[in-house]
C-alpha cells in the first residue's frame, strides 16, 4: 500500500484514497480535427512506460477530489514528489536532488 502526498491537502495519505490516472504531461490537442491519424494515435495510445522515473497523474478521489501529478520510480515505487496539475514537469536535475 503506497503512501501518497496530496499536494492540495498537504498530507500523506493511504493509497486507497486515490485512484491512478495515467501518464502526466500529455496535453489534449486544442484542435484535434487538425491532427493526422498518426498524430491522434500518438496522443491517444502511445505512452512512455519507462523503467525508472515516471511522471504520472493521481486523483484524490476519496479526499479533496482533485487531480495532481507525481514523480514515481517504477522500480522501487518510491515517490520523488507530487505537485499540482498544471505545474511544469520538474527537471531531471530537481528529481535527482530529491532522490538523494
Amino acid at each position: 500500500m503506497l503512501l501518497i502526498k496530496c499536494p492540495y491537502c498537504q498530507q500523506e495519505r493511504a493509497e486507497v484514497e486515490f485512484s491512478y490516472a495515467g501518464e502526466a504531461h500529455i496535453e489534449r490537442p486544442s484542435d484535434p480535427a487538425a491532427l493526422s491519424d498518426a498524430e491522434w494515435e500518438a496522443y491517444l495510445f502511445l505512452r512512455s512506460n519507462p523503467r525508472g522515473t515516471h511522471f504520472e497523474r493521481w486523483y484524490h478521489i476519496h479526499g479533496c477530489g482533485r487531480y495532481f501529478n507525481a514523480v514515481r520510480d517504477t522500480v522501487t515505487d518510491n515517490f520523488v514528489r507530487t505537485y499540482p496539475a498544471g505545474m511544469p514537469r520538474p527537471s531531471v536535475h530537481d528529481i535527482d536532488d530529491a532522490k538523494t
Partner: protein
Amino acid sequence: MNAYRADQGGRVERGASVAFSFNGTNLSGVKGDTLASALLANGIHFVGRSFKYHRPRGIMSAGTEEASALLGIDRGQGRYDTNIRATTQELFDGLKAESQHCWPSLRWDMGVLNELGGPVMSTGFYYKTFMWPKSAWEKVYEPIIRKSAGLGRAPRAFDPDCYASRYAHCDVLVVGGGPAGLAAALSASHKGKKVILADEQAEMGGSLLSDTGSLINGEAAQAWLASALATLVERDNVTVLTRTTAVGYYQQNFLGLVERLSDHLRVLDADLPRERMWRVRASQVVLATGAIERPLVFAGNDRPGTMLASAARTYLNRYGVRVGNRPVVVTCHDSAYLAAFDLANAGVGVAAVIDVRDDVPAALLEKAGRLGIEVLGGHTVLAAKGGLLVSAIVVAPVQAGGPARTIDCDALLMCGGWTPSVHLFSQAKGMLSWRDDLGAYVPGRYAQNARSAGACDGRFLLLEALNGGDAAGAGLSDPISDTYTVAEETHSSGISLAALPTSAKPARGKAFVDFQHDVTIKDIRQAVLEGFHSIEHIKRYTTTGMATDQGKTSNLNGLAIASEALGRPIVDIGLTTFRPPYTPTSFGVFAGYSRGDLFDVTRKSPTDRWAEQHGAVFEPVSLWRRARYFPQPGEDMDKAVARECKATRASIGISDASTLGKIEVVGRDAAEFLNRMYTNPWTKLGIGRCRYGLMLGEDGFVLDDGVVGRLAEDRFHVTTTTGGAARVMAHMEDYLQTEWADLNVWLTSISEQWAVIALNGPNTRQLIAPFVEAIDLDKEAFPHMAIREGKIFGVPTRLFRVSFTGELGFEINVPSRYGLAVWERLMEAGAKYDIVPYGTETLHVLRAEKGYIIVGQETDGTQTPDDVGMAWAIGKKKPDFVGKRSLERPDIVAPNRKQLVGLLTEEPRTVLEEGAQIVAEKSASPPVDMIGHVTSAYWSECLQHSIALAVVEGGRARMGEALYVPMPDTVHTVKVVDPVFYDASGERLNV
C-alpha cells in the same frame, strides 16, 4: 519416555506428556515439541512420499525451510489443513497428523511405479506433454497426473475459523527474534523508539534456542536470552510478537505480518481468531531473518534420515531429541562440526565426519579426535543406501583412484554452507550483491529505509549478530558496534559446491536439488542442454524453486549447478525473483473480516426496506442491491416478470431508479462544458427541457448515457448509469480540472441526495395529478422530455417526464429521506389503478421491446454511436467534443462494423442465450466466422414472442436476412429486424 529422547537437555518439559496420532497410530511427545521433534523422538523419520517419484521422504530441517515433511493436520471441527510443515507445527494434545500424497498407504505406495516405469515425468514434462495430441492428454496423462501429483487433499468443509486484521505504526520494526533481532530491539527501545519485534517461532531466540556453548557478556547464551526478553517485555514501547511471520515487504516500509493465534491450541475459544494480519508501517525496518543451511547434492540425498546438520543440533539441544544412534556427517563447511561435537557430547556415537575439503582446520580435527570422531578429509559421497531409512553411505577420496568405503549409519547430517535469508530485502526491491567468499547473495543497495543484521547480512558469528543488531537498532552509522562481548566456537569457514564430486555414472541414483518438486541435478543439466540459459527459464522449465517453499533450500544449489553446466559465473545467469508471501499463507488471513456479509459494501436505496418486506428478489448492480422482481405466491421469475410487464403497459408500473448516478453541473459555462463532454448539443436546450446525452471516451467509444435536464441557464441535472456514476464524475472532473480549467463550472455528485421513483404506464398522469403542486401536468405544458420543479405530497420534487419503457412516464425525484414515504403514498393511491411494483428484470424487458440500449450490455467498450444506431445523437455542428476526433479513425470509418439490430427467432417461444455467437451459414463445419453476438434476449409477454438485441457485422444492411445461432445441442435460425419491437412510431409516449 520416548526412545530417542535424551535424558536431559533442551527446552521441553519431559514431565508434560502430549498425546497425538500419526497415520492413525497413537504416539506421545512432550510439551514444547514440534510435530517433527515428537516424531523423531519416537524414531520416525519416514513421514511422506515425494511429489513426482513417490520416493520415501523424511524430516530434513527443523524450521520454516522444510521441503519434505509436509503433512495434513486435522484440528477437529472441520479444521483440516494440508501441506503443514511438521517442523513448524507445535504439538498439542489430540493433534492428528497424516501423510499426504501416498496410496494406498505410506509404506506401500503405488506411485513409486512412476519411478520404475521410466521417465514419465522428465524435465519439462508439462511443456512437452502439452505439445502432444489432445486425446493423449485427456485420456492418458491427465488421469496419471491427477492421481499421482498434487500435494495433499484440499479440505471440503467451510472454514469455521475467523481471521483478524489490524494496522500498526512504529519507529522500528525488527523482523526476526534471534540474537541480531533481540539486540536491535534492545538498542532501539533503549533510545525510546516505538518498536515491534516479530518472530515466526513460538519462542523468541532463534539460534540461541539451540546454543548450549556460547557466552554473551560472560553469561550463558540462553540465560542472556531470558533476561533480554524480560527487558523487552517490560518496556512499554516494545510490542513482542511470537508465532508471527513477516510474509510480505511492500512499498514504503509497509509489511504484512501474520500472527498465528490458535493453530497450536487444542481447545479453541470461539472468539479467538485463528490468525491476525498486522499491516505495519515502519519508519525503519531491521531485517534479522538469519540464514538457511544448504543441503548437499549427491545420489540418494533424500533418503529418510537425511537432514541438515544444524537441524540435528537443534533437535538435540532444543528438544532433547537424538536424530539417530549412529549419525554420519557430510560437510564442506565448519559449522557441521558443531552438530557432531554436541551429539558426541550427548553420548551419541558419531560414525564419521566426511569433509569434502582437503584442509580441515586443525582445531576441528583436534577436537574431533578428542571426542573419538573419525574425520575423513578430502572425501566425497558416492551414494546413500537404504529404503525407508538411510542405512549406509558409500564414500571415496575426492582424488580419483582411492578405495571406496561403506559406512553404516542411521542418520545422515549434511551441510553445504549457509544461505542468508534475503527474501524480504529482495521483496522490498533491494539490489542483492554476490559474495564469492560466502558463495551467496547478500543485501546490496537498499530501496527503502531498512538495514540488515546478523546472518541475513552474511555475518554468521554470534558476536557479529549481536553487535550488528545493536548498531542497526540504535541507528549507528557503523554496521557493527562493540557493545557485546562473546565467547563462542568461531567455526564459520567453508567452501561452496554445486554438487558433491562423484565418479558414479550419472544414470544411476537421483541427486535432488529441489526436494519438494523432485528436481534433480540431471533435470537442471538437461534443461541447459536443451538450450535454457537464463535461470528464470531454467526455473520454469524444471520447476525448481517453484514449490510452496519457493526454493528456500534449493535456489542456490540450482544456480550453482546451472552455472557449472553453462560454464559461466553465477552472477552472470541471474537470480529469480523473491515474491511474497515468504511462507504459505492462508487465504483466510488475507480476507480478514471481509467475508460473508462484510465481503463488500452493500448500498441500499431508500425503498429497499419496502422491497424486502414485499418479497422482492434482489440482485447486485455494482455495489447496490436492487429489486430484480416481486414474485407473488407461486410465481417464478418468468411468471412474475410477465405479469409486471403486462401491468405496466396496461396501467401503471412503479420502480425504484434511485441508483442512477446524478451530477449537478452548475456555472456560467455549464452548457459549454456539456457540449464538450457529450456528443449532443446543449446550448439551445430550453430551460425545463431534457435531452438524452451520449458520452464517449476519447477513443470514440460509448462510455455512458443518461438524461440531462436544464433547470436554469447555468444549471443542469445530469443522470448517469448506475454503474457509471463514479466513473463519469471522475471523467468530468478530469477534463474540467486539467484541460479546461478556464471554464466556470462546478460539479456536485447528488446521487445520494435524490430518491428517484419511476412511474410508467398510461395512467400515471391521473395517478399523480391530485398530489402535485406548482407543476402543470397538461401534455402540452409538460411534454415528453421535460423537467419541472414543484411539490408532490407536499415534498419538493424535480419531476422528469421521461420514459425508459415507451409508455407515458415520470421520474419523481424527491430528497432521499422522503423516498420511502412518497413510494408508499403512490402505492396507496395507485391501488385503484392496479399499480404494480417491478424490478430490474421487467425494466430490461420493457426497454428492450423499445430497442433502448443499456451501456455495458449492448456495448462493451468497442461501440461507436453509429454502431448502436445513435449517429443522430451527435451534434454535427460542434467543432469538438471528447471522442469526436476518434470517430474519424480508419478503423472506425471502415465498413462492416458490428451494428445493433433486433433478432426474431424462427420458433417464437425460443429465447436466445445472451452472449451466444451469430454465424451466417447454418451448417458450416468449424471454424466458422462469428459475425456478431446476442446482447439481450427476453420473452416478451406483451408481444407474445421472444425478442433479442444483437450486434452483427454490417447489421443494418441485413434486414430480413436469416442468420444462425449455433448452440451445443441445436442451431437456432433468426431473422434480422429493426431493434424497435414495440410502438415504433412512439404514439404511447406522447400522450
